[in-house]
């Protein structure tokens, strides 16, 4: 298992009330495996993904990356682990508007010596070899998501976490994006996609249903 949640509980305290979002989730993804996590809105899919990607901490339970317990790490160590193991793909792409496509892909490496040409190769790989110098505003939605995928890959992660990767794309570009993710998977990267887009099932190896904070 490259990434694993063991009996993870997540509670939010809001004043007197305590909201339990995840109630003991056990979940894992292997290298080269494409898993979709499906479920209604508000069932805790995104929270689960954030905990898996070390953006959020569980209230109880253990998070493992490549077998190592990463639950108690401090902010610096978590950021470092995120950079080493995890690539994120978001529904809203979250590209930095002032940077070109190439610079956006390089962004995760800027403070550690640059990507050494890898950013350009990745853009070619996702079919944007001729858009390297374009700013996000000059790219279509599908192109933006492909830049975001290239960015997620720049540090050679072991697992890619995608939150509604097709949520803002039409059917055709959505399919292209999913095929791209499927190809990455076949090269050995683990993928977890959180979605309510049924189409993703056509590309994934395994589907997990999350409802009321538990994996069904």
């Amino acid at each position, binding site marked *: 298992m490259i990434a694993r949640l063991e009996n993870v509980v997540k509670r939010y305290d809001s004043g007197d009330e305590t909201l339990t979002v995840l109630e003991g989730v056990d979940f894992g993804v292997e290298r080269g495996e494409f898993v979709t996590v499906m479920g209604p809105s508000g069932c805790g899919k995104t929270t689960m993904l954030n905990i898996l990607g070390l*953006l959020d901490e569980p209230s109880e339970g253990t998070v493992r990356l490549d077998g190592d317990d990463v639950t108690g790490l401090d902010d610096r160590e978590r*950021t470092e682990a995120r950079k080493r193991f995890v690539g994120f793909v*978001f529904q809203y792409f*979250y590209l*930095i*508007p002032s940077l070109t496509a190439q610079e956006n892909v390089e*962004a995760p490496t800027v*403070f550690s010596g640059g990507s050494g040409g890898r950013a350009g190769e990745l853009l070619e790989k996702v079919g944007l070899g001729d858009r390297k110098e374009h700013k996000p505003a000059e790219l279509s939605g599908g192109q933006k998501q492909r830049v975001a995928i290239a960015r997620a890959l720049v540090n050679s992660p072991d697992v890619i976490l995608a939150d509604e990767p097709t949520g803002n794309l039409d059917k055709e570009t959505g399919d292209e994006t999913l095929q791209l993710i499927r190809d990455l998977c076949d090269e050995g990267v683990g993928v977890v996609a959180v979605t309510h887009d049924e189409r993703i099932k056509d590309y994934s190896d395994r589907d997990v249903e999350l409802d009321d904070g538990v994996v069904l």
Partner: protein
Amino acid sequence: MPSLLMARRNLVRNPLRSGLACFGIVIGVVAIASLGILGFTLQAGFTQNMGDVANQVEVVPATDTDAGFGTVTSQTLTDREVRDVRRTAVGATVTPVKQQTVDISYGDTSAGRNAYAVENPEALFEADEGRVPASLSSGVLVGSTFADQLEINVGSAVTVDNSSYRVVGVLAEEPWTAPVNPNFNIVVPETELRDAGYSRVIVEEGSASAANETAQDIRESMNRREEVVEVQENSELIEQVRSQQRLLSLFLIAVGSISLFVAGVSILNVMLMSTVERREEIGVLRAIGVQRTSVLKILLAEATLLGFVGGAVGVVVSLLVGGVINHFMLDDALMVLRPGNLRYLGMALGFAVGISLLSGAYPAWKAANERPVEALRG
């Protein structure tokens, strides 16, 4: 360096806002630097007018208060009194001055003027033309105004009370405050005034405070039993004027600092706005593995860059303003490049960068410490 590049990009993204924040700093720096330069130039102008007079003490015979108002005294200092002055003012340049009214003829003109005689003319006078010798034996030195009036040049022969002398130097114009003012007069060899007494002794010290101490010493040692000499000094007055001027300079700089402080607040505002706007962007940077300290560096670099660019432009404008001030007050625009002024420019620039860094600190800290998951939730 990557943080500086990112910072530059972020600032260029919103040129109007960055430009206005910079402009605030420019105004602040110009206010501090040009007010500082103004104060410094006022002091320089004052010092120029005062000459060395602050360092000088003048010892003259005590006036006989019983003689009554309007009595002209022709008292002089005795050799013994001059020796006493020398003994008290150890280490200072002591110049006893003889003075007498003489008739001077040059060509067809003749005039009654004061003649001064000193053993070391170099200590008191400076030549405009010709030179001031270490001691005068057969030549005379003519005051600038007097030389102009009679069209006397170096090499001219003048007659002083029947003796003929060659002019070896025309003196530079002395400020009105100088104790021995030769502008309308003449400096002759001591032999010419052999019979005259010493009208005064000029004691020159290295600084105004030393002059003040020496003046006190002379008063104490020579006037112990009766008032023998009168010791005149300007050091106290000048020191007072100087300290007033320093206060004025400080006040001017304080006024300037307020505008720089206001500029700092506007940077704080701009940085807060831009970090709120870029909340998601910063969250993404953190999510993709950029450390908190790197985010902090980017934002601090942005604030510092605003301060530095504004400060640099401000320094250039201040140099121009200072040049104009110096041109009108000291007749030399390039006087603005003196170290004293450059100090104000450096100070203003440092202050600008410092206050920008300080203003950027809170927004940067706030943005860097936000949990990425919160920022991405929108």
